[in-house]
């Protein structure tokens, strides 16, 4: 289906846009704002508001008709292969499916001292307005912090009967994140038989999400992952897809 934006009449193509240009407000600035709008495909564009901020910036609001058409049949989306659950749904699913708390052990391994990632996912504080896994009553979370050795991680995972192990790697110098991850997954393979091994998850801003098999882990999460996504994945992988 071919569509255009809708203002108040089908097919009118009207959109609104706001932005700041790094110049003081004058006639030339308004012309520059319209030029930008035109180049973004708005024609005609109406400058409805301009306001200088401080010495050298101007804020604009522009309304206008976009010339572009959109074909909904050509839209490509990358589908997440598991449903995104709310915190409530995650807790309910674990309660129903496991009948016990799901044990998660997290750590930064190797020399990596950047706990930013693991804390964002695990700490109550969380990230982007989402609370971390600690806030889920049905998840028993152990956050081992930074610079954890692989043997310590394996030992703690065993002791806590971890269902899942989360490892965060931020430092990527000389591919440290890849080496560390391979060492970690190998250690778990060696220490525990297949049925007893926890789900292995790594995360970090520079991982390629397609490398899971190569690194010997079950899942890779990349930049922008939120606690809820991780929790939903845990339910998907450990409790089963049933909601």
């Amino acid at each position, binding site marked *: 289906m071919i569509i255009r934006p809708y203002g108040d009449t089908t097919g009118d193509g009207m959109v609104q846009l*706001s*932005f*700041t240009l790094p110049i003081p407000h004058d006639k030339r600035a308004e012309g520059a704002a319209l030029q930008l709008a035109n180049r973004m495909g708005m024609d005609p564009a109406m400058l409805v508001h301009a*306001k200088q*901020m*401080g010495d050298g*910036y101007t*804020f604009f609001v522009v309304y206008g008709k976009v010339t572009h058409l959109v074909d909904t049949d050509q839209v490509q989306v990358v589908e997440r292969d598991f449903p995104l659950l709310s915190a409530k749904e995650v807790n309910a699913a674990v309660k129903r499916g496991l009948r016990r708390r799901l044990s998660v052990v997290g750590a930064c391994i190797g020399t990596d001292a*950047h*706990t*930013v990632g693991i*804390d*964002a996912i695990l*700490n*109550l*504080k969380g990230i*982007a*307005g989402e*609370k971390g896994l*600690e*806030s889920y*009553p049905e998840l028993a979370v152990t*956050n081992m*912090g930074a610079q954890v050795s692989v043997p310590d991680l394996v030992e703690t995972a065993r002791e806590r009967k971890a269902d899942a192990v989360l490892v965060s790697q931020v430092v990527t110098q000389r591919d440290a994140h890849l080496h560390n991850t391979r060492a970690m997954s190998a250690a778990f393979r060696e220490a525990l038989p297949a049925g007893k091994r926890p789900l292995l998850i790594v995360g970090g801003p520079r991982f390629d999400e397609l490398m899971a098999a190569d690194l010997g882990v079950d899942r890779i999460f990349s930049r922008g992952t939120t606690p809820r996504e991780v929790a939903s994945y845990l339910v998907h992988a450990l409790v089963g897809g049933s909601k």
Partner: protein
Amino acid sequence: MAGKLDLDAAVVARARELAARAGQPVVDLARSHTTVSVERAVLRLAGVRGADPDGIPWVNRLVDAVRADVGLEHGVAVPVFHALAGSGVEDVTVLAQKAAAGSVRFSLPSGKAATTARRLAKRATAAGLRTVDRRRAERDRMIKRYGDPRQRPWIYLIVATGDIHEDIPQAQAAARAGADVIAVIRSTGQSLLDYVPEGATREGFAGTYATQENFRLMRAALDETSKEVGRYVRLTNYASGLCMPEIATLAGLERLDMMLNDSMYGILFRDINPIRTFVDQRFSRQIHARAGIVINTGEDNYLTTADAVDAAHTVTVSQLLNEFFAHEAGLADWQLGLGHAFEINPDLPDSFRLELAHALLARELFPEAPLKWMPPTKHMTGDVFRGNLLDGFFNLAGALTGQGILLVGMMTEAVVTPWLSDRDIALQNVRYVLNGAGNLHEDFTPGPFIRGRADQVLSEAIGLLERIVDDGLLNAIADGTFGIMKRPADRGKGLDGVVATGADYYNPVSEEL
């Protein structure tokens, strides 16, 4: 504007008495322990500066060396100044360097040598405290010269670029645009570092590291801007996490004006050991009291985890505990920026009336405190238009209930770190409300709904305080009474930095405070 809720004075007195009973055992605990960070703060006041080539501050190296030789139960002051007297070194930083290299050993003197070491330690830390006093006098002078903001609430804005040299022009621009208080958000993760980074820093995660040099640079820049705009622009940072006492000390030395400093935030939200937190917090509040710094407490955080209606009384309980701990540490009412927030689900019927009830309750329970009023975050969805409206109602509630410090809400909360235009629109929102309705509180008399709700929250708070008194505050924290986190006293980060003090413990700074 006190008295609109007709709170029963006997009930209010009962709430305070319960808070004191709940808090006292924790104060006793704090008085009988020290921590690595308290001892490092003492050394900072005594003049230890700088860091080793790996960026580990000399105060850390020195405390570690003393601890290895004689333990910390006596305090670092005596062994350090005894070693200084015996080594022929003049400067404590040089002593720290020698100690790190292993060329100085520490021991505990007795008799006359101990008296001498105490006297030397006292003289050195007194010089540090004199600097703190001078900074305070300097602030008083500048406020006299440039003046306070013309309106209440004061307008509080955040900058958070990660780079101090980017933060400075942004902070100055925000002050010119109307901000009365600038807060520099710290880098994610700094709260869990057991040392304070050194120097001017240009990279942080979602915030800028709190360092002495960053404090100095920002304060100097805002002094310039204060002169330019004709009002004293205040600077805020965070005395929280594992280095609370040291950061409080650095704030005192560099004339910061407000510090985030909550009694339980680190325990609940950062899993820092409860005893570590209470010991560190008491010392840091003593420093804040001396430095004339206004603390901001973090009750808003409870409402981001729990439901803002169901958990309203936990905010009141925490405010009462924060007040008790603050008074005990020597802070005056004008220094208590007790926190609370506008976090009720806006889809709830009468949500705004409930907000007014909660905000008025805080106002009337703490009539002399400059309450810190925090904007909506939990129900900001990315719909920036609705967010701007919500922020407008937040501003209105702030004006209507006489809040002291208003943290400006951003319509792009939960979307991006604020853009220049977001801040401009947010300030325009605040100005419109304060201009148009700043004195509306004169015409506003709450009816039975708001009064009833305030009574209900207060009585729930008393119920919870009674349970805490019975149970013990540390047990209550261990059982997950606040937020939903269970934090036992023998767990959490930074526990190995806590030491029970011996009979001969000596801390020249605590003695002075």
